[in-house]
């Protein structure tokens, strides 16, 4: 658990972070959103003590971070930096192995871990392990950055626009990977972005920041339903809210279950229980259907979802 209590940070006369109160529960993904220069990176850097704060206090698992050894604190916090920050003179494998090496893991364990992480992030070890960062594409470099942060299995992850400056498809893939990883290994995560859709997709709770203050800290659904101010309302896109809410809801919520799962032939583009209601509606509109069958992970048809139900209760 990370607690920020009345934390402020000044740079000369500019107030970068202004009396922030924020609690991030263990295993939660807290996404900081806000426009450029509102203090997101500064907040993150204070949590791992790269920046001292001017006022307030920060506690990690109840302990004041200023009383801890900074290196020990950071070794337990994976850090994905805005703009990757990979070591240009080290290979991909050595970059990823950085923290385990600092922790003096035995060689074989490090090698196994590097392989495991590269596979997890969809980077072929045999093709990429011995490359240098300059030889990677932007998306691959960001994945290496994420792998490096995960390497020693830290309890806390700080991610500063880890998927920034990527094309939409790579970004989407990395977001899905992140959700998948998060499902396997629950890490207390602080994730910075200025993309509200990314925030809605990944967050357990979103903290909206503006000019160094936290304007609203709530679940994606509540942020969409009850934006605290005009600023938040503009950020989430007033008119688009209906569809955004639909994309938060899984099909499972609105489907009519069959009494027992049926064996049937799922087509190529099947709808799954965990897909969003928005996707279901889109499929129906495009294929001009009144209802579609829903499948579970074992390729069994478990129910159907209808257009009426979505229109009536989708939001």
């Amino acid at each position, binding site marked *: 658990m990370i607690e920020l209590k009345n934390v402020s940070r000044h740079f000369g006369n500019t107030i970068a972070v202004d009396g922030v109160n924020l609690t991030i529960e263990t295993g939660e993904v807290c996404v900081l959103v806000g426009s450029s220069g509102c203090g997101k990176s500064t907040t993150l850097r204070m949590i791992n003590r790269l920046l001292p704060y001017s006022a307030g206090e920060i506690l990690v698992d109840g302990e004041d971070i200023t009383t801890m050894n900074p290196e020990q604190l950071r070794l337990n916090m994976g*850090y994905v930096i805005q703009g990757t920050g990979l070591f240009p003179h080290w290979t991909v494998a050595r970059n990823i192995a950085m923290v385990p090496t600092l922790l003096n893991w035995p060689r074989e364990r490090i090698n196994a871990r590097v392989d495991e992480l590269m596979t997890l992030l969809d980077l072929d070890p045999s093709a990429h392990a011995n490359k240098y960062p300059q030889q990677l594409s932007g998306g691959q470099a960001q994945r290496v950055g994420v792998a490096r942060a995960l390497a020693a299995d830290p309890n806390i992850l700080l991610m500063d626009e880890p998927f920034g400056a990527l094309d939409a498809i790579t970004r989407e893939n990395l977001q899905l990977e992140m959700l998948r990883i998060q499902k396997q290994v629950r890490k207390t995560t602080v994730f910075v972005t200025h993309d509200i859709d990314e925030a809605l997709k990944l967050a357990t709770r979103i903290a909206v920041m503006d000019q160094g203050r936290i304007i609203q800290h709530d679940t994606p659904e509540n942020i969409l339903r009850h934006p605290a101010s005009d600023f938040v309302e503009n950020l989430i896109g007033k008119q688009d809210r209906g569809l955004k809410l639909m994309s938060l809801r899984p099909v499972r919520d609105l489907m009519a279950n069959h009494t027992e799962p049926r064996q049937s032939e799922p087509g190529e583009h099947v709808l799954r229980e965990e897909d969003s209601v928005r996707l279901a509606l889109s499929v129906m509109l495009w294929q001009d259907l009144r209802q579609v069958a829903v499948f579970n992970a074992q390729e069994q048809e478990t129910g159907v979802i209808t257009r009426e139900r979505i229109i009536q209760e989708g939001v």
Partner: protein
Amino acid sequence: MRVWLPATLLASLLLALSAGMPVLEPLFNWVQPGKQQVIYERESFLFLLQNHLMLVVVSAAVGTLVAVAGGIFVTRPFGRDFLPLVGQVASIGQTFPPVAVLALAVPVLGFGEAPILLALVLYGLLPILRNTLAGLEGIDPSVREAALGMGMSPVLVLVRVELPLAGRVILAGIRTSVTINIATAAIGSTIGARTLGDPVIAGLVNGNTAYVLQGAILIGLLALTTDSLFEALERSWDRRLQSVGV
């Protein structure tokens, strides 16, 4: 190993000439007719080469140590205040001619090896200092932030990240420094240091072109050898880091 070949060849030539200059006596007789003695014999060339080299190596070692330490100091949080001053000294200092440094050192240290060593250290320090600053300041700040942010101690960041990344640029600074100092050391002969400049001075004083040539050839060869040695060093450095753009 191919990269080391030119340096090895030049070094062999330098040693061979230093040891076997008398073999070329007919040649120098032709260059300088009408002199009894055309081969400089007051000191052996090998001794002069050794002494010359010693001056350059010692000054380069001390200069590198001081310059790199200074460069590191002013780029740390606690030394940042001195960065502008040191940066300026490093650039402006090089416009100061080495002879002037020598002239200023003699009244303080007298004649002999000491003043030339001081001049070489002071003068050779500047290009190394300038390159150390350029190398360290040229590192992408996000790399340093990542290293610190993931739990490296500041000392480890310096040793494992900053110095390796700046190393290539620092090496180039040492190369410039050593090349300049090989020439500057020769001037030391005017104030009583034993260097390869001795035959040149003696030749100029006695009007013996052969002496001048012998000194000049050896100094030139020494400079070439050292330069190709650094060339080879830089190449193998680049190769080790493959296509790394540092």
